[in-house]
């Protein structure tokens, strides 16, 4: 979703750090997820091979994306489905609205879709139609009037007690703090909506071009119901989600599922091949696939950033990221959060729109290590940092004086004489830096004492040692 004022990670993150409840929730849930992911990965001795293979398939597919998408389109058409293309978020939401209007549909069920969040689908539909999220986490977030805070676990930021309180307030049901009762309450409400729904919207985890098969991975069965109960199934997918062959799932499913939830397999893996055929007992009479670009072609055209599109949205980078673990997803203010969000948001919305995102990382590299398709997230962060700082105007994010300071530093560090003078000068100015009201020394001193240069630098001591006393 586009915002007009730049996102401010820095101020948001300060608030998040002070939110004890949020931090407890993050620690609790992420701790468990990390543990199960680790165990699930360790079970597969050929994990690294899978990663390398998946990465190769993704990069190969991206290198011939247009062709692969046309094959997907042809395969879906052949199975009796319809394929629509949307270049922008606005076009995509309009297509969905038109599909509903033309059929006089007013009641929609939706299963989890990050693309839906990205293009602001709920906001666009809710104005005129009834839209119910049927993924439990999404349902909770929708009930709270919030947005998802994690790719896979949208309500990660909320505790069980908070969810129970929310249910009591908004749905007027008492569920204690019992997961079973929370789930049962949500289910009974959702069932009513499923029965009445005329249109079901789902996201797509993978789309196999060879057979026109859409793959949706889930644990609750809500996507399966969204697909099969209403009269029209609309699947929305970013164009980067296409894979060449159904057989590639043997690589992608274990990578996605084990990385995302640490399960061996999810409760449901839905393989969807178009509308109901005459010999089939159920399924939707009508099926429409909407392929959404929304900036992806632009990313594809940029060699330094392209690999971002290999992402399979497992959320593993978020789970392992120390920054995400500390502040959660909402601090990012964007649809995509954590390491992948820090590189994807500035690319989708423009670096001026999320100027602080690329800096929100200690470059520890845990994200790249966890990424099932090996996206070099730290390198892309560094690349985007450069792009943010070379921007002119109000939307650039600059630490005042940083570029100037680094230019001076580079000038000094490219000559031994100047470097020595820099060392000497900085020693002399050091006591001054501590007293400055702003600047790096001041920021450092928030919660840290300022270290002092040694009485004499190494180079002098080394020289003395060589020359003898």
């Amino acid at each position: 979703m586009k915002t007009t004022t730049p996102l401010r990670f820095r101020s948001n993150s300060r608030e998040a750090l002070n939110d004890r409840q949020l931090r407890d929730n993050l620690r609790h849930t992420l701790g468990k997820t990390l543990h199960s992911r680790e165990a699930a990965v360790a079970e597969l001795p050929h994990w690294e091979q899978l990663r390398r293979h998946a990465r190769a398939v993704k990069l190969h597919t991206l290198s011939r994306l247009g062709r692969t998408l046309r094959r997907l389109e042809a395969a879906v058409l052949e199975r009796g489905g319809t394929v629509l293309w949307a270049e922008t978020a606005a076009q995509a939401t309009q297509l969905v609205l038109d599909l509903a209007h033309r059929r006089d549909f007013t009641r929609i069920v939706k299963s989890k879709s990050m693309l839906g969040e990205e293009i602001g689908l709920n906001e666009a539909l809710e104005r005129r139609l009834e839209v119910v999220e049927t993924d439990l986490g999404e349902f909770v977030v929708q009930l709270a009037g919030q947005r998802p805070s994690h790719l896979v676990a949208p309500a990660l930021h909320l505790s069980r007690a908070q969810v129970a309180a929310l249910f009591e307030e908004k749905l007027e049901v008492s569920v204690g703090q019992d997961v079973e009762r929370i789930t049962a309450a949500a289910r009974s409400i959702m069932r009513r909506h499923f029965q009445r729904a005329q249109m079901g919207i789902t996201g797509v985890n993978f789309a196999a071009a060879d057979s026109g098969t859409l793959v949706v991975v889930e644990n609750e069965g809500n996507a399966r119901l969204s697909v099969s109960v209403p009269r029209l199934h609309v699947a929305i997918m970013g164009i980067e989600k296409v894979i060449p062959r159904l057989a590639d799932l043997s690589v992608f499913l274990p990578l996605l599922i084990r990385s995302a939830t640490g399960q061996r397999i999810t409760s449901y893996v839905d393989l969807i091949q178009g509308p109901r055929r005459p010999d089939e007992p159920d399924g939707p009479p009508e099926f429409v696939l909407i392929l959404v670009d929304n900036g992806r072609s632009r990313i594809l055209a940029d060699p330094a950033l392209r690999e971002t599109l290999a992402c399979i949205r497992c959320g593993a980078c978020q789970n392992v990221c120390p920054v995400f673990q500390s502040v959660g997803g909402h601090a990012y203010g964007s649809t995509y959060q954590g390491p992948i969000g820090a590189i994807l948001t500035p690319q989708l919305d423009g670096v001026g729109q999320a100027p602080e995102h690329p800096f929100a990382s200690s470059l520890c590299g845990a994200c790249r290590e966890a990424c099932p398709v090996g996206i070099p997230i730290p390198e892309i962060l560094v690349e985007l940092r450069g792009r943010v700082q070379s921007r002119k105007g109000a939307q650039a994010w600059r630490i005042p004086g940083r570029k100037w300071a680094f230019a001076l530093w580079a000038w000094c560090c490219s000559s031994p004489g100047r470097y020595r003078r820099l060392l000497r000068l900085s020693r002399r100015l050091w006591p001054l830096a501590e007293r400055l009201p702003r600047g790096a020394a001041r920021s450092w001193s928030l919660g840290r004492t300022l270290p002092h240069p040694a009485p004499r630098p190494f180079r002098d001591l080394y020289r003395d040692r060589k020359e003898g006393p």
Partner: protein
Amino acid sequence: MTCLVDQFFPRVGLDTVQILERLGLEVHFDPRQTCCSQPAHNAGLQAEAARVAGHFLDVYAAGREPIVVPSGSCAAMLKVALPRLFGEGSSRRDQARQVAERVWELSDFLVNRLGVESTGAALEARVAYHDSCHSLRELGLREEPRRLVRAVLGVELVELPNSDRCCGFGGTFSVDFPEISVSLGREKLDRIRASGADWVVASDASCLMHLESIARACGQPIRTMHLAELLARRREVPA
């Protein structure tokens, strides 16, 4: 020698020299060298980084001997990132690739190049080894430093829980997002204290500087030591 060591922790530099000399190596320090260029690179300022990297190459490209660095972070910059600062096919890039092959992080050099584990050091203490992110992930050095620490006479190595989790330093990150940076550092310190270690040892002075500064600000100082300082430490002779 890293610029941080040069300016703030010269002892680490002297100890590195001492370790290598005790092993019978001839050690040179070229006083023309300045910085590996990492601060600018991580800040995204590639032109500035390339300028400093160019100077590094001017100083070191001519030689053939190994270049030993007492920092995982600087070594990773020189080995992994430096060539990328220069355009594909440029002579600088080739030069950077050749130099990268000669760069060794200290523990990597001792264990994998020299085949040394014991440096003859001694310290009666419980020691926790802190993995610096770049040493661990970019250079893949997990066991090397631990083997060296274990071989120190009298040392008991204790493992920190979540030892692969960042301490929060992250270069400019530490001043761009000081609150997150310090919060991560505090969590690391909690785990260090809970481990019962007398000393925390790391291959990067930067992590230690960050952790020590937080510990001091909290009024609960910890004892930190660079790996080189530990490996150069001789048994204290009672007077």
